[in-house]
């Protein structure tokens, strides 16, 4: 089969590799009909995530048709149309039973790395480095899905693929980011990052009752896109506007009730801290570049919530703990507990409350993936979300 393989920093190639096979009785093999490139794939592409190996198959947003199941998978059969969540979860451990699927105890075959780095290991993830289990990803013609009786959600044949594809990651991720804000009547939510997760967080914040959403980025086209898709969204382009002042202005001096960092570890910015982060990351003195997160902590109102769906992997400098402590902030974060959100968000799609395909900007053949990665990385204004067709 054809698969998109990580071959080194800024080097992905489409290779012919052996087809995947069932390795455990709770596995299934999926013939992939649609897959996508995620913003977090760019962290891998740009070499920010350690423990990638040459030849690793990329991709954690995918869906398709069940072609084979292990003997312990009784809820799926050949021909079922399914969307696969990017977090792999057993469904049996303490964490799964408390709907914390992304920190499942039993789905990372290589927990030692995270235990050393983080104290404990989270769940396995598709196509996201050996720290996350080293699972082959879904930017391919076929994928092996472990714990297939818990992960993949069946979708009706009548729904177009592109309407449900983003149940695999970015829709639930944006939704959990907004849910973590515990939105109350009258709330203003500020969101850093107008990429796909920021776009879904915006929609989700409105779905959950936010009065106002302010989206912050410096890609004007992405901000304009959000304006075109949401009636009441305000936007701030940080290249020409001072963010803190503007947010205070938009909230009558109060500051936003909650702030979402939908950027993660490759935050851009032109302030001194962001430039220093970039230098430090380049010479390996720090791993993550958290400019957006610092700004979110600074801007949020007293007693507010900072919600972090953007991915972080290592260490950050100059964490503004003084601001966080003295303002009495709440922090919520983590990889998305996918299996918790997929059923209700599928219902929202079926009821016509949202059509997630709005976010797509480009459709490419799987063999064009290397070009797609390059464009997505360098031309962020136009290349918002790429769907790959095997």
């Amino acid at each position: 089969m054809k698969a998109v393989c990580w071959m080194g920093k800024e080097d992905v190639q489409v290779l012919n590799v052996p087809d995947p096979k069932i390795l455990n009785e709770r596995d299934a093999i999926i013939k992939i009909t649609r897959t996508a490139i995620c913003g977090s794939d760019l962290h891998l592409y740009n070499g920010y995530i350690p423990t990638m190996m040459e030849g690793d198959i990329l991709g954690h947003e995918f869906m398709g048709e069940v072609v084979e199941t292990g003997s312990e998978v009784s809820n799926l059969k050949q021909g079922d149309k399914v969307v696969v969540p990017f977090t792999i979860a057993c469904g049996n451990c303490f964490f799964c039973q408390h709907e914390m699927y992304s920190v499942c105890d039993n789905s990372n075959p290589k927990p030692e790395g995270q235990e050393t780095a983080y104290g404990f290991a989270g769940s396995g993830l598709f196509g996201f480095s050996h720290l996350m289990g080293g699972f082959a990803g879904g930017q391919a013609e076929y994928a092996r899905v472990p714990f297939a009786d818990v992960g993949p959600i069946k979708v009706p044949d009548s729904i177009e693929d592109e309407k449900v594809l983003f149940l695999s990651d970015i829709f639930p991720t944006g939704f959990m980011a907004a849910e973590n804000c515990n939105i109350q009547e009258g709330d203003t939510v500020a969101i850093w990052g107008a990429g796909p997760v920021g776009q879904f967080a915006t929609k989700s914040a409105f779905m959950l009752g936010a009065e106002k959403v302010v989206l912050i980025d410096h890609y004007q086209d992405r901000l304009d896109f959000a304006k075109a898709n949401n009636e009441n969204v305000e936007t701030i382009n940080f290249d020409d506007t001072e963010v803190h002042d503007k947010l205070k202005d938009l909230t009558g001096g109060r500051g936003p009730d909650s702030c979402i960092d939908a950027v993660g570890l490759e935050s851009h910015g032109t302030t001194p801290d962001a430039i220093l982060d970039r230098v430090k990351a380049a010479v390996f003195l720090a791993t993550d570049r958290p400019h957006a997160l610092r700004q979110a902590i600074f801007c949020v109102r007293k007693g507010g919530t900072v919600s972090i769906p953007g991915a972080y992997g290592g260490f950050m400098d100059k964490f503004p703990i003084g601001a966080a402590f003295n303002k009495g902030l709440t922090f919520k974060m983590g990889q998305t507990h996918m299996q918790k959100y997929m059923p209700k968000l599928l219902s929202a799609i079926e009821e016509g409350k949202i059509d997630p395909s709005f976010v797509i900007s480009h459709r490419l053949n799987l063999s064009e993936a290397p070009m797609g990665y390059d464009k997505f990385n360098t031309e962020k204004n136009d290349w918002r979300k790429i769907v790959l067709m095997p």
Partner: protein
Amino acid sequence: MKSKNQEKSLANILTNTQTNIGTSERVVSAVGGGALLTYGLKRGDTLGVMLSILGGGLALRGATGHCQVYDALGIDSNDKSTNPKSPFDNSWVSGKIHVTKAVTINKSPAELYQFWRNFENLPKFMSHLESVTVTGEKTSFWKAKAPLGTTVEWNAEITSEQENQRIGWKSVEGSDIPNSGVVEFNPTSTRGTEVRVLLTYESPAGELGAIIAKLFGEEPSQQVYGDLYRFKSLMESGEIITVEGQTSGREPQAKKASA
């Protein structure tokens, strides 16, 4: 001021005839050290150089019966008086290793106890065990993988048991690797069962053997932890998650696809 140890010259090391290593350990040390020295030199890379230095040191301690590391640590494996009544007293091994690890499993003590009590299940999650055959109500025959592709085997007997709470076992006298173990299953109020294992065994080449094992990624405490974790996964999810055998661009058949 220089410490006493720092004043030791190479000549002193080579001529120090005071023996602080047991006889059998000397043999293992000399043979193993020689093999490591040869292997290290063959590799020729940085790790190879390190291994050959280690090997050379081992061979030296085997030949002289004197170990500088033991000196520094105050260990004397030739001193029978420090451990006169060891249950595993055996002339050709020395250096007892204790490992204790715990894991919490989302199952009842009874389910876990029943699975463990059938020792033939142990190789399903203990990666170094090849097989265990139950030979009697309290006795069993164990086969384990050892470094460099060899195997070791021994007979074991259950020394104590309390249903759904505790199992203790021990290798019978004269075993290659004298060892014993205890596993306890303690219920918690809401978090399942705390499983605690204590393993004791004597390693060939003594404590230095454990250090060498560590170099090859077979450090006992990590191994026991890995085994317990696999036990947890097997009991909770019914299988042990793996990526062994999955496809990738590293497979020999992989080649660039034509666009």
